[in-house]
């Protein structure tokens, strides 16, 4: 029960703190509108299905990803500057649980950004939104959210270990837009890059959502559901191992402090 209290307290604390930051507000409230309008214009002349997939869900997923990069990952860096990293690190509740709660808190806002872009694009462009299979859509969105939480968790572990991981955060934002089929089909990429794309879970989530829009049988969708679950579990496993090692390593390397 107390572990659940820790998770909810940490999620609520992050939920409130994050939205207090102007940059985060821009990321989850304004950026979905801009991305939605931009992608809506780009896909306006395309089929309703392409419009739904890239303008509606693509804009939402890209802002969700941006919020993961600029919140879940960089929050560790921010806590370090606030001087709260040491306080939460030494708390008896356990650092890994507190960080997980924070990432869940941020992801709630990230999910909201999908809803914002969905609403904006639907209202502004008045195009028909095509969803052929709501079950695949539900599964895709839920698994994608869990997967992005896992990625945020992995990033948080890296940020605790290294004060220079901020570079990684900036480096990761655009490659995911390009590689994962969020803004255009990955089939347009060179073959080698397509293999690389399958190392990122958003690629698999986009595939599931694609089947939700275009329609598809269980046999067609299940490999992507399985792949996304395996990748998410892989991210989680690596995160847990890293958090176990962090406990000693960040104290040896003195990375909890600003300097």
């Amino acid at each position, binding site marked *: 029960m107390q572990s659940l*209290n820790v998770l909810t*307290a940490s999620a609520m604390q992050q939920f409130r*703190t994050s939205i207090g930051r102007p940059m985060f507000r821009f990321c989850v409230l304004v950026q979905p509108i801009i991305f939605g309008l931009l992608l809506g214009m780009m896909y306006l002349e395309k089929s309703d299905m392409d419009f739904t997939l890239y303008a509606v869900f693509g804009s939402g997923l890209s802002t969700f990803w941006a919020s993961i990069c600029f919140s879940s990952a960089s929050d560790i860096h921010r806590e370090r500057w606030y*001087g709260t990293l040491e*306080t939460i*690190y030494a*708390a008896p509740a356990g650092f890994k649980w507190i960080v997980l709660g924070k990432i869940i808190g941020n992801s709630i806002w990230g999910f909201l950004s999908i809803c914002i872009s969905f609403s904006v694009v639907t209202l502004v462009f008045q195009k028909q939104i095509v969803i052929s299979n709501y079950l695949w859509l539900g599964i895709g969105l839920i698994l994608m959210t869990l997967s992005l939480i896992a990625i945020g968790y992995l990033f948080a572990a890296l940020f605790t270990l290294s004060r220079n991981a901020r570079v990684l955060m900036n480096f990761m934002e655009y490659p995911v837009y390009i590689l994962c089929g969020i803004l255009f089909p990955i089939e347009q990429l060179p073959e080698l890059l397509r293999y690389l794309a399958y190392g990122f879970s958003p690629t698999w989530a986009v595939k599931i959502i694609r089947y939700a829009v275009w329609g598809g049988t269980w046999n067609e969708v299940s490999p992507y559901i399985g792949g996304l679950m395996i990748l998410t579990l892989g991210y989680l496993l690596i995160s847990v191992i890293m958090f176990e090692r962090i406990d000693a390593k960040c*104290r040896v390397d003195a990375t909890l402090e600003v300097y």
Partner: protein
Amino acid sequence: MLSNTYPVISVKDLKRTYSAKIGVMNQKKKSVEALKGISFDIYPGEIFGLLGPNGAGKTTTIKILTTLLAPTSGEAKVFGYEAFGEEKFIRHRINFIFGGERSLYWRLSGEDNLKFFADIYKIPRSKQNELLDCLFDEVGLTDVRKHKVETYSKGMKQRLQIARALLNEPEVIFLDEPSLGLDPVAARALKKMVRQIADQGKTVLLTTHYMQEAEELCDRIAIINDGEVVALDTIAGLKTIAQNESNNDANLSLEDIYVHFIEGRAICKV
């Protein structure tokens, strides 16, 4: 009073070296020895002062003892447990405040801050309301408990930090320059609170640059310079040593004693 009691904190030949990379293209590794083998014991109920110039190793010592930093070698024990390796037996029994206005979430209210810290210190929610009422009252922030921390003055933030540090009813509190930047009134209020904490039987390890504060509060003082303890005794004991060494019978203030040990004599390890 101390010799027949087990120390609550025990530090023996503690060393800590930091490594840093210098340069951009041709990076070179540089090592800085922050602690060069310090030793001291702190006993239950003591207010123990750690004085020294900037960069002397005070904060490094506190960070090791609060389980936030690993020692390079030597022993750092709290309640008989190693601060590095047995921290799970220590963390719920201690708390700490580092100087300045950090370690709080400024965009949250004082109350939301304490509620969050109470949860991560595993204080049952059924007890939290009463505890928070009591702590806000104790630090004099009841009227502003629902205000955002960013609207607090420096002194108010420091008092909120004290409330945070008392949430888990710690047996030992580490205060690293708690009065840094406070005005005289706020500093006096802080001293009163530290005294009250000690009166409750808690052990306090205090670092400060303010000699008057150390003189008023500390039972014993260790003076640390360049990573080494250069003197350790009660204020009266330090005074006697300084008087004998300088052949000066004048009534020395703690500042005189401090300057004597930092500048006025060759380092003699204790």
